[in-house]
Structures are given as structure tokens and as C-alpha cells.
């Protein structure tokens, strides 16, 4: 059975997970382990007038009580946002100071003011409760749309009116003109609801300081340990990079929330040095809800104009984006370059303009969550398309088809240059698989049972394979977004691949091994993938933005190219043949057309014995590479959702969910389908269940699984997942990426289906039974 590209290979990493042998951060115990508990603000906005630690410090087991003054006094720097986005008037974004432990003011419920280090978690928690903080409560605001009003409380002195930036993209005047001349204009107000990522493994950190070497080790729940080390070192001045090792062992899901460097990791490292103890912190779920960066929370009005034939002439979008109380690591890029640049969707639109105002509110910081900006863009475009079709009396599939981009490359008016795709093919495949032709009959049959049946489309596109370094640099990114890899062939022919990508569920230990084993004709078991440790892997930008295939694997391919070149030289030398005649297959390195061959392992041995190498060749067989992508990649597809609504209760059942995706080359379809399933589940969660709710004064009302509706097995259907691919021309394997598509494409499909069923286009997410019932009543 083939294990190469396209094979449904069972995952190599499963064994340890299904037997309970996974090693997650909280499973690790340092020498001399102590435990941290944070003292957190119960108020959404307050001045810190004083902190009395006396009672806490005297409690059993307490080693230290540390606060923000000590932290900043030791030179630990503020938490920063690493992507500079300027306002349209050229002024830089207004980044408010964020200290890992607040010194004078707290700005959201959960903002940390002090930390207790104790012998046990229980003692640390008890003592944290005994720390007395004198707060002067200030007025607070949790809502983005209120943040810009004159009466709203001001969060940061350097951000007048709570405005972080007022940014735009596209040609406003041309778009206005196009809309003025349009035969039909669809106008909508759309909210993209605020979500909590909820990776099932809560965040955790184990910081181990070695005083003899002034060296720090941090085990942490990270999607990008090298980025964590870089930021901890360069910006927070915790320790120089050569004195800081960051290890992200098994990580239990991320979805974006584990990209960022949070106050807790910084504090644990610093506290480890202060106390000369290993310091561990693990969030409980309640703490995760008030510390993990949230996602989405966009408030948008949009106008889409069409000519008399149904062609889109212009799209104008105005968005207020909530970034919470402070700017998290990549927060600025999410509602700008990851959002507005995708507003062309799959369509030929000559005129687009988008204005985005990002604002501070007294809530948990908001940053990238699965899809990051692209679900918000897709929701705007695809809700508008469906609604416009209904308003104009056109078939929603045909309206899309009429406007699809047909020729590639295609330059949109909002930066992106789509490189390849066949949008018709995905639409056709989805329509056939969903049996759209039979829908009318199914609707009739449902009606006979008193149910409202509806069908909704979503034709999504996203920009993945993040990202060409120079391009993102010109847009304000503070890092390059290449990837690195090292391929080490051992003297016995086994191979270790060290990758800067990080797997927290994506199955890299299997898929990455597949491309290596296939390339060198060896068994899958002879290949090991090493990731997640800054002492082992040379560097890496980590895993997010569906980049591990398109960027991470491309780096591996580059390194393999170098290995292969050396193997050819060695074999040609030993076998006395020309390099061009060397072929590598089936565990052998052969001379084509002859019976001359050497085993793969013999090449390794020859390289390391170095008794018989070509003149001037260095011994060993190990190569590394850095790969910087030439362009973003553009996964796209069509999702079709079919629902039945009970008009008496508003209860909605998804009776069929069909996906047709174009991810480019697929290495392991089993794993890719799994990614789509998980993404769709999160998208359905957003559309029907999930919502972070704050009271007006900033108290989090959805702080546990009792109140925040996570999708359960009984909330979801089986998914019908299909693939109609075009190859990505911009990377060696032709990969586009698959990690976020499900979460991007599905919410509008669901809402389009429900609104189709109930005959009211005005329905906000999450479409709970109550919301659906209300919409039904409003339409009567």
C-alpha cells in the first residue's frame, strides 16, 4: 500500500494519544516545582490604588507574592502588537501599554494584578484570594459600537475616543460612483459574533530557571515556540534568546489562541528566576474564558451594487472591530489585512472600498481565531450575495456563477492576486453532492410535516500559506513568515526531519513523513518528525493561517532537494556513474539501465564514514533550508447547508451539510477531511450556538461551559466532504492549505439556509431557537 502523496495513511502519532501517553505541558513537572495563581481584577475597569499582600504572604505554603511594580521594576517590557497598521491619515495605530501584571489600572475582568507562588496549586489559589487589592471602580464599556461614542469611558490615554486606527482599503470615490449607478443595491447590517476559541487543553506554562547558568526553559502550550522565544526575549526582555529554551510539547488544540504570548508565560518565567523555583501555571476553564484571546466581534454595514444583468459593480463595507482592552500580538492585522483583502470573494468586482475602525473596550483582548478575518469577510460577501439574489429574484447559485472569477491570475482591487482556482467546478460538485435538484421536493415533503426547509450556499475563498515575508513586511508585519526545515539522514539511513511548523492536532508526524518517505523510497517508520523545541529545531514561524503544508512542507522539500543532490553525487562517485543517471527508489540508489546500485542506508553510511567521498565533499548527510513563499495561496470552495426549522419552536436541524473544497495537492485525504470536519463544526458553532456575552459594564456572562454553548456531538450532522482541486502554482507541492476553510465557509451557508427556510433575511448569529423564532414572528 502506498504511503506517499495522496495516501490515507493512519496517523503515526495516535498511539501515544490513545494510550494516554501524550505529553502535554501540564503533564510536565519541573524539579522543585512550585505553582502560580494569579490575582485577577473582578472589575472591568478600575484604578489600582494599592495592593496589600501581607495576609497572603503569611499563608501556608506561600513562597512569594509578586506584583506589577516589581515586574516592571525588573525591566520586563510591555506586551506588544507585532503588526503596525496605520490610519488612513498616516498616523500610527494607538497601542496602549499592557503590562503582564497591571500596575495602576485594570481594563477587563481577568486583567492580572499580582501572582502568588506557592508549594501547591491549592495553596497558591487560597493565597491569591487573600491578596487585597484596593480598586477605584471606573465606568466600563464592553461593546464595540458604543466605544466610539463621546460618553464612552476612555481606556488608554494615547487612544482618544478609544480609536486604535481608522483604516481603509480600496477606492472609496470610485466605489460610491459605481453604487450610485447600480441597478440594484443590497444593503445589510451584519454582526460577526464574538467567540471564545476553547482549545480543549487549557493554556499552561512550566518555567524552569537554572541559576547556575542563568538559563530559562519554558514548556508552554504554543503553536509557535520560536516566535514565543523571540518575543519573550526581544520585547519582554525576559532573557536573551541563547539563554531561553521554549518547548511546546504535545499541545491540545490551538485554533489561533496559542499563537500569542500572554501575561502568564512571561510572569512564570520571571517568577521562576525571582523564586529560584520551577513555576507552573495551568488555566482552569473559567480562567481560559477570561484570558485566552477571543475572536471575531465585527460590526459591519455593507452595500453591494449590481447592474441590470446581475453583475456586481461595487462593494462598500464599513466595519467597527472590537480589539478588547489591549492589543494582542497580531490583533491589528485580523480586521484589516486578513479581512478586507478577501472582500472580493470568488467574484470579479471592479470597485471595493472598506473602512475599518478598531476600538478598545473593557473586554478580553481579541486576536486571530480559526480563519482570523477571513470568516468575517466571507460572512459579509456570502450573506450579501444570497440576500441580493433573493431581492433580485435570481437563483443564488447562478448569481454567484455569473460573477465568478474565471481567468487566473486575477488581481482584485484589494491587494490579493488569486493564482489558481476553478470556482465553477466546486459549485458544480457541491450542487451535485447536495442534490440541489431534488431540494424542491424535499422542501415540499418537509412542509407536509409542518417543517420549514431551507438551503443556503457559501462560496468562500481565503488567503493562506501565510505569507511572503517582503509582502507582509510592506503591510506592517513585524516578522517574516517563511518556514525552515532540516533533513538529517542518519548513517543507518533513517531520517529525522526538524521542522519549524508545530502540530497541535494537524498530524504533521504523519503527513510530513509521507512526503519524505516517498521521496527517498524508504518506509514511513524510518522517518521521524521533530518539532516544537527551540533547542532542536533551528528556527520556525509555527503553525497558523493554514501554513504548515504550503510553507512548512515546502521548506522540507527544499531541504530534501539538497539532500538528494548530495546523495546523487555520492552514489555517482561510488558507483562510477554520471549523476544524471542516478535514480532513488525502493530503498535503493541505482544507476539507471544497469544493475549497479547501493542501498539507501549505504549512502548514509558512506557519507558519515567519509572514506570514499568525491574530492572536496564535506562528510555527513544533513541539509537545511528556509522557504519564503512567493504568494499567498487561495483555497476556495462551495458549501451547501440544508436545514429544517420547526416554526413553533425555532429549533433548527442541519439535515445535510455538503462541502466541496479546492485545497490544491492533498497529502493525506483522511487528515484533510478531518480538518474540514473540525472547521465546519466550529463554523456551525458560531452560526447556531456560540456567543461570548458581556454585560454592558463588562462582566463576562458566558464564563463556563454552563453558559457558553460548545457544539456537542448531538448538535452536528455527519458532513459530506468532497474535493475538486486545482494545483497551487506557487509552491513545489502545489498545496493550498486546509486548516481554516471549514470555519470560514460554513457560517454564511448555515445562516443562508435558515433565512431561506423562514423567509426573513434578517437573522443574527448565533441562530438560537429563540432568535430563529423571533425572526419567524417578525416576518409574519
Amino acid at each position, binding site marked *: 500500500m502506498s504511503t506517499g502523496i495522496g495516501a490515507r495513511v493512519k496517523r503515526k502519532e495516535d498511539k501515544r494519544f490513545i*494510550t494516554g501517553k501524550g505529553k502535554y505541558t501540564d503533564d510536565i513537572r519541573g524539579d522543585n516545582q512550585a505553582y502560580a495563581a494569579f490575582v485577577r481584577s473582578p472589575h472591568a475597569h478600575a484604578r489600582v490604588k494599592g495592593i496589600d499582600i501581607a495576609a497572603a504572604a503569611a499563608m501556608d505554603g506561600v513562597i512569594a507574592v509578586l506584583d506589577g511594580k516589581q515586574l516592571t521594576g525588573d525591566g520586563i517590557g510591555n506586551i506588544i502588537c507585532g503588526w503596525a497598521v496605520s490610519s488612513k491619515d498616516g498616523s500610527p495605530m494607538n497601542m496602549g501599554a499592557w503590562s503582564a501584571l497591571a500596575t495602576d489600572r485594570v481594563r477587563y475582568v481577568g486583567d492580572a494584578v499580582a501572582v502568588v507562588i506557592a508549594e501547591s496549586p491549592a495553596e497558591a489559589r487560597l493565597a491569591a484570594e487573600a491578596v487585597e487589592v484596593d480598586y477605584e471602580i471606573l465606568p466600563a464599556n464592553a461593546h464595540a459600537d458604543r466605544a466610539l461614542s463621546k460618553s464612552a469611558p476612555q481606556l488608554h490615554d494615547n487612544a482618544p475616543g478609544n480609536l486604535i486606527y481608522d483604516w481603509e482599503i480600496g477606492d472609496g470615490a470610485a466605489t460610491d460612483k459605481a453604487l450610485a449607478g447600480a441597478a440594484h443595491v443590497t444593503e445589510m447590517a451584519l454582526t460577526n459574533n464574538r467567540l471564545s476559541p*476553547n*482549545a480543549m487543553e487549557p493554556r499552561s506554562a512550566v518555567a524552569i530557571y537554572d541559576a547556575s547558568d542563568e538559563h530559562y526553559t519554558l514548556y508552554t502550550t504554543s503553536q509557535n515556540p520560536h516566535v514565543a522565544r523571540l518575543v519573550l526575549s526581544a520585547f519582554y526582555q525576559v532573557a536573551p534568546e541563547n539563554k531561553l529554551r521554549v518547548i511546546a510539547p504535545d*499541545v*491540545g488544540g490551538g485554533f489561533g489562541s496559542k499563537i500569542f504570548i500572554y501575561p502568564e508565560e512571561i510572569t512564570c518565567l520571571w517568577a521562576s528566576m525571582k523564586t529560584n523555583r520551577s513555576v507552573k501555571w495551568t488555566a482552569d476553564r473559567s480562567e481560559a474564558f477570561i484570558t485566552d484571546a477571543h475572536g471575531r466581534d465585527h460590526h459591519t454595514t455593507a452595500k453591494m451594487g449590481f447592474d441590470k444583468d446581475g453583475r456586481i459593480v461595487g462593494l462598500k463595507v464599513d466595519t467597527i472591530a472590537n480589539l478588547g482592552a489591549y492589543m494582542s500580538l497580531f490583533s491589528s492585522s485580523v480586521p484589516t489585512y486578513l479581512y478586507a483583502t478577501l472582500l472580493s470573494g470568488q467574484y470579479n468586482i471592479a470597485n471595493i472600498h472598506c473602512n475599518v475602525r478598531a476600538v478598545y473596550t473593557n473586554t478580553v483582548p481579541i486576536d486571530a481565531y480559526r480563519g482570523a478575518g477571513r470568516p468575517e469577510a466571507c460572512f459579509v460577501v456570502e450573506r450579501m450575495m444570497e440576500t441580493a439574489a433573493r431581492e433580485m429574484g435570481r437563483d443564488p447559485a447562478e448569481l454567484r456563477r455569473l460573477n465568478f472569477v474565471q481567468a487566473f491570475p486575477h488581481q482584485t482591487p484589494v491587494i490579493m492576486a488569486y493564482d489558481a482556482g476553478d470556482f465553477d467546478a466546486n459549485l458544480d460538485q457541491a450542487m451535485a453532492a447536495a442534490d440541489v435538484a431534488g431540494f424542491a421536493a424535499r422542501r415540499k415533503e418537509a412542509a407536509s410535516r409542518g417543517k420549514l426547509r431551507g438551503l443556503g450556499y457559501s462560496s468562500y475563498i481565503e488567503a493562506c500559506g501565510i505569507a511572503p515575508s517582503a509582502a507582509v513586511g510592506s503591510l506592517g508585519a513585524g516578522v517574516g513568515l517563511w518556514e525552515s526545515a532540516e533533513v538529517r539522514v542518519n548513517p543507518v539511513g533513517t531520517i529525522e526531519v526538524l521542522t519549524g511548523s508545530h502540530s497541535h492536532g494537524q498530524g504533521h508526524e504523519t503527513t510530513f513523513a509521507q512526503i519524505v518517505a516517498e521521496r527517498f523510497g524508504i518506509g514511513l517508520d524510518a522517518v521521524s518528525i521533530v518539532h516544537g523545541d527551540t533547542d532542536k529545531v533551528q528556527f520556525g514561524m509555527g503553525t497558523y493561517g493554514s501554513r504548515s503544508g504550503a510553507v512548512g512542507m515546502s521548506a522540507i522539500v527544499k531541504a530534501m532537494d539538497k539532500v538528494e543532490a548530495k546523495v546523487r553525487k555520492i552514489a555517482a562517485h561510488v558507483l562510477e556513474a554520471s549523476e544524471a543517471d542516478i535514480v532513488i527508489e525502493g530503498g535503493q540508489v541505482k544507476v539507471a539501465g544497469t544493475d549497479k546500485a547501493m542501498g539507501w542506508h549505504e549512502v548514509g553510511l558512506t557519507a558519515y564514514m567519509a572514506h570514499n567521498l568525491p574530492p572536496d565533499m564535506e562528510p555527513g548527510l544533513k541539509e537545511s533550508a528556509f522557504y519564503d513563499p512567493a504568494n499567498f495561496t487561495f483555497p476556495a470552495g462551495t458549501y451547501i447547508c440544508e436545514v429544517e426549522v420547526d416554526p413553533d419552536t425555532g429549533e433548527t436541524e442541519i439535515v445535510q451539510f455538503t462541502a466541496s473544497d479546492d485545497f490544491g495537492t492533498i497529502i493525506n485525504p483522511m487528515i484533510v477531511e478531518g480538518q474540514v*470536519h*473540525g472547521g465546519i*463544526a466550529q463554523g456551525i458553532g458560531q452560526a447556531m450556538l456560540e456567543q461570548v456575552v458581556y454585560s454592558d459594564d463588562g462582566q463576562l456572562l458566558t464564563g463556563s461551559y454552563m453558559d457558553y454553548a460548545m457544539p456537542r*456531538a*448531538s448538535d452536528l450532522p455527519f458532513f459530506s466532504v468532497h474535493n475538486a482541486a486545482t494545483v497551487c502554482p506557487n509552491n513545489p507541492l502545489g498545496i493550498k492549505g486546509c486548516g481554516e476553510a471549514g470555519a470560514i465557509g460554513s457560517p454564511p451557508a448555515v445562516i443562508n439556509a435558515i433565512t431561506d427556510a423562514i423567509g426573513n433575511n434578517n437573522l443574527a448569529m448565533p441562530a438560537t431557537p429563540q432568535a430563529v423564532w423571533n425572526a419567524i414572528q417578525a416576518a409574519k
Partner: protein
Amino acid sequence: MTKVTMIVNGKAVSREVPDETLLSDFLREKLRLTGTHVGCDTSQCGACVVHVNGRAVKSCSTLAVALEGAEVTTIEGLSNGELHPMQTAFNEHHGLQCGFCTPGMIMTSVDMVARYKSEGRKLTAEAIRTELEGNICRCTGYHNIVRAVEDAAGKM
């Protein structure tokens, strides 16, 4: 502090623990059986499920000292040598991604299948979904988990 003795994965273990010690802490911190995970603090997610006297129990909501003499099986003790059919099915059907919910999912599912078998009831996909009410997975969308349980049910 109370001394508690129980049989964990077939071996008798005794520890002196504070009365408020949860079984999940007892297993993870006292016995270092870290395959049992803790994913929430409201008894909702099921990452912590183990078997107590043959029944699935949320170890985050069970006091260790209440289990004097009990038989506890964790994910580490589910199979001896050979994988349990439920473990194999999770691998075969790609029923896990990050693996964090997996121990609890498997322990819940083993109990589920055994219960339905002993009661002579048919375990449909719909029933599996309902039975998984107390187990949250954020990665898989449950599709492949349900398939894995269906498959294992036929082999147990």
C-alpha cells in the same frame, strides 16, 4: 488528610491525601497517570472520564477518599499489551486530532458500548451522539469519533 486505598489499573495503591482531593488530581499528581485530562471546571467536557467499578465516571467530580476499595481503570490501563478495539477504531477512523479529549472519549465510549450490549439495545449513530453529551471535542467535529464508536461496537 485521609488514607485511601484503591485498585488502579489492577494494582493496589494507597496514599494519604487531603479530603478535598479530586480523583483527577489523585491520578494525575499522586500516581502521575497523566493520560486522564482536565478540560473544564464545571463537569462538562469529559476529558477526565475514567472507569470506577466498571462504569464511566468524571474523575474531576469525584473525591478520591470516597473511593476506598474501588477499582479504577484509566486510559493507561484500558489495554494490556494489545490495544482495546475502541483504541484501534479511534486510530483507524481518525477519531482524534490533538488527542486531548481522546482518553475521556475512549473511556466513555467503552462504557457506552458495554452498557448497550448488556441491555441488548442497538447503538445507532444518533444514540452515540446523544451518549456523548458529556464529552466535548473541539477538533474533530465528532464525525470520525461517531464512526469509530460504531465500528468498535461491532468488534467489542
